[in-house]
């Protein structure tokens, strides 16, 4: 395991790879944790509207200066506003999410199944967890990207034939971006399309429980 532990992308590079999925004019919700970093890696020529489920559309980067308790993202972090931002209450915010007006949600994951089931809220080690907006985002977003490390810190496989942890939602994941690979979820299973620089496809296979098809266009990520 020694060598292979240092290969693969950093959290920042995972975020950067996810950012490449975003297009001009998209409305994007970033989950707590790793997904939050995606905002920092958006190409400067692309205008994306970030939605925070606590009631902001069009926020910008984290605020480094003063803390305004009323201007925070869904992770409780102070944020800045971009021109054209707006505020609304939580009923309106989840109407936006549930009603399929959010183009892309990027969430963290604990497990993803080959059918696109997502488990990301219940922490067995903690004997509990918090749902927050995850279930609504998973069900409501037009496209769901899961950004996570390919395996758990203890080596446990996270991309599985079936999720073992309680689900966030079944059959919702469209794309998985990990430190090792980019994997599409198709109706007939998983589809390996990219590997991280220096990561051999068979290593990705070895760390993924279900059998994946390899794209004929399988390539190394361009970062």
């Amino acid at each position, binding site marked *: 395991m020694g060598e292979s532990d240092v290969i693969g992308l950093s959290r920042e590079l995972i975020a950067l790879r996810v950012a490449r999925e975003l297009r001009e004019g998209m409305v994007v919700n970033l989950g*707590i944790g790793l997904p939050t970093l995606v905002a920092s890696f958006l190409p400067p020529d692309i205008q994306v509207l970030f939605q925070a489920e606590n009631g902001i559309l069009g926020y910008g980067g984290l605020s480094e200066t003063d803390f305004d308790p009323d201007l*925070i993202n869904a992770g409780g972090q102070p944020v800045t506003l971009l021109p054209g931002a707006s505020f609304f209450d939580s*009923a309106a915010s*989840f109407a936006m999410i549930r009603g399929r007006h959010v183009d892309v949600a990027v969430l963290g994951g604990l497990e993803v199944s080959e059918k696109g089931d997502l488990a990301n809220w219940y922490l067995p*080690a903690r004997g*509990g*967890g918090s749902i927050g*907006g995850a279930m609504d985002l998973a069900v409501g977003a037009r496209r769901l990207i899961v950004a996570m490390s390919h395996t758990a810190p203890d080596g446990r496989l996270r991309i599985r034939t079936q999720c073992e942890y*309680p689900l*966030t939602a079944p059959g919702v994941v469209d794309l998985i971006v990990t430190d090792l690979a980019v994997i599409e979820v198709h109706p007939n299973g998983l589809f390996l399309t990219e590997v991280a620089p220096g990561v051999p496809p068979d290593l990705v296979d070895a760390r993924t429980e279900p059998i994946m098809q390899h794209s004929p266009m399988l390539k190394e990520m361009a970062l």
Partner: protein
Amino acid sequence: MIDKVFPSPDDAIHDVFDGAAIMFGGFVSAGSPSNLILALQQRRTKRIIAIANNIGLGDKLDVLCEQHQIAKVIATFAIRASAKRQSLFEEQYHRGEVELELVPQGTFVERIRAAGAGIGAVLTRTGLGTVVQEGKQVLTVDGVDYLLEKPLRADFAFVKAWKADHLGNLVYRMAGRNFNPVMAMAAEVVIAEAEHVVETGELDPERVGTPAVYVDRVVECKPLQIRWYG
């Protein structure tokens, strides 16, 4: 002239009873009725059913656990990913001393809105195929399955506004809206703390976030700072 202003948080919550179901507006540091919560701590009200988006380390709500004032929490966020620092609520939850009903956030807010808006139930796809579905009716409308989620109401709602007038109109600021407007619709008695109380007629009618009809009592309070450990 109608005047709903009370002199202090304690006066404003004078009739909150043991065992009351209380909604608390706020999302982490934004729009939390912290002064009303501390008044509740002072009153030592017992067996509270707390309906709030989040309870956690740094939340004023967690302070109510100091004297075990909370019997049950209905929330979307209550157990944190990190076990490093636990809230009082988490400790009591893991010891089985408090009950927790975890609700997806969109379902949480829509159930509250349904109670306030006279809607019989909410049909949502959120929670289908998960533990949230347990014990609930699944309804098929035009070939699509939905969970039937029931309205959520309370005896009291504690809300936080930026400004209020004597008539009870509330104006929110930025992301301080969150759950406050819907909670103000869904409780028998609605008590608002506001940073600024102004004369009736001074608020811009275009900016009112909660119309006066929903608010029973108003109290002016300096907002308390909340330190959130995310």
